[in-house]
């Protein structure tokens, strides 16, 4: 069965989730991946959205983070201060999903501004829940399209802290989550090096070469000795993924 690079990325992200985990889900790609996992191998995945919906089971994907379908199918809806203070901050979340306009070699993310803060080239939406997701979830998965302008040596603005400038920074800041343990792109998978914390290529998706990945990466990307190759999406994975409909989509 044919599939697009974006479908491969979504399937790879979904596979990383284990049944019974508690996942803090952002909109778009993360929501798609988490809802895919819930329909496949992880029926008891607990989805939490920052709008305050806990253990929600939407039939259709929400367009926004606070769609009615999230509240209607949730076990519980709490206030926005509560979702951050009582649920995200204390480290109750197993996996947080993030994306960004820029990612750097230490997995720091930028969703704030391209260029200077005071005189932006492009003004982006800003941080939302991302800084605390990056700080507090036990693990963070980053999901984003792999392009040279996005995979940069240093992000213009650190919206979400990955590993800062090296392996010791998170501990120095007192951040309690492990940080981004996996970056899943439409080309492959990057993981932080256990010693340096710099992102290295650990897997390429079917049909993708290391050279392609390097060409789309803005730093000298190291490749793992045990480079893997992602198993292509199964028919069932693709069927379910393609059946996911977004609320109100044409």
């Amino acid at each position, binding site marked *: 069965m044919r599939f697009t690079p974006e479908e491969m990325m979504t399937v790879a992200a979904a596979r990383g989730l284990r049944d019974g985990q508690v996942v803090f889900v952002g909109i778009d790609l993360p929501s798609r991946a988490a809802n895919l996992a819930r329909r496949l191998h992880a029926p008891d995945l607990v989805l939490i959205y920052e709008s305050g919906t806990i253990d929600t089971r939407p039939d259709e994907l929400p367009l926004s983070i606070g769609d009615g379908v999230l*509240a209607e199918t949730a076990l519980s809806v709490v206030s926005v201060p509560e979702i951050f203070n009582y649920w995200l901050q204390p480290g109750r979340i197993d996996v947080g999903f993030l994306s960004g306009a820029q990612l750097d070699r230490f997995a720091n993310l930028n969703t*704030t501004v391209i260029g200077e803060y005071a005189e932006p080239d492009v003004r982006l939406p800003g941080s939302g829940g991302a800084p605390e997701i990056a700080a*507090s979830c036990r693990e963070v998965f980053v999901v984003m399209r792999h392009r040279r302008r996005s995979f940069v040596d240093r992000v213009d603005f*650190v919206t979400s802290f990955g590993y800062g400038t090296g392996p010791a920074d998170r501990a120095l800041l007192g*951040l309690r989550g492990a940080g981004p343990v996996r970056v899943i792109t439409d080309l492959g998978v990057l993981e932080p090096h256990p010693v340096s914390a710099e992102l290295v290529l650990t897997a390429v998706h079917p049909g993708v070469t290391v050279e392609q990945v390097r060409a789309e990466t803005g730093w000298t990307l190291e490749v793992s000795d045990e480079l893997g190759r992602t198993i292509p999406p199964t028919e069932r994975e693709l069927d379910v993924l393609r059946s996911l409909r977004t609320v109100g989509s044409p």
Partner: protein
Amino acid sequence: MAKIVSLREAVGELVHDGDTVALEGFTHLIPFAAGHEIIRQQRRELTLVRMTPDLIYDQLIGAGCARKLIFSWGGNPGVGALYRIRDAITRGWPAPLAIEEHSHAELANRYVAGAAGLPFAVLRGSAGTDLPMHTPAVSIVRCPFTGEELTAVAALTPDVTVVHAQRADREGNVQLWGISGVQKEAVLAARRALVTVEELVDELEPVAGEVVLPRFVVTAVAEVPGGAAPSYAHGYYARDNTAYRDWQRISRDRETFAAWLDELQKAEAVGEPGE
């Protein structure tokens, strides 16, 4: 105790030029009708506060009502950018716009501190990121027991908070349910609170997940059916996702936006007598 008034009257009395104004509602129950009435009454120099500016602040800012925006995520959710806000920030059109930006958790906790009558709130926050260096409302506090350093955020106390709710009774007790966001904190933090509601009822039947705002923390209630559209009111109407998608086209271009604004200013406020 809350007064029951028209929307025009409420905005006229409660929202003044130069005020710090929070229109809250997290995706759900966004007080669009009240925002449009603020545009119609041509308020100026407002400091606008909202976690997610959304279309409503793109509109208010495009209309020239604001000089400052305090926010934590400024996009058109699931669709794209808010071009009127971008235009104001990066090119000063129609007026220069100062910004003060936070993470969601930090801005939510600024309201929490305001609601609790405290000068600040403590959280783990955006430590390590570049955010704190750009806002004076974020600082550091040391735990007197463990010595640990934590983020402190300054209390936010709007001059007026505006929210939309499903129902109020005739004494002005307000009831809302579904995703309740930061509305309770935003109302409790404010000096004055204006609530628009889908309907006035004789009695508030209890609803699961309800948030109740008692009449003694509400300044005015205006009955404005449909007052949250194109966002939604749980149990009343759904989000108009098409309108959100269409906004891209309107927002992107100054002239298209100006035409939209003309139409708005010609229209009567919803829920007005005689309509």
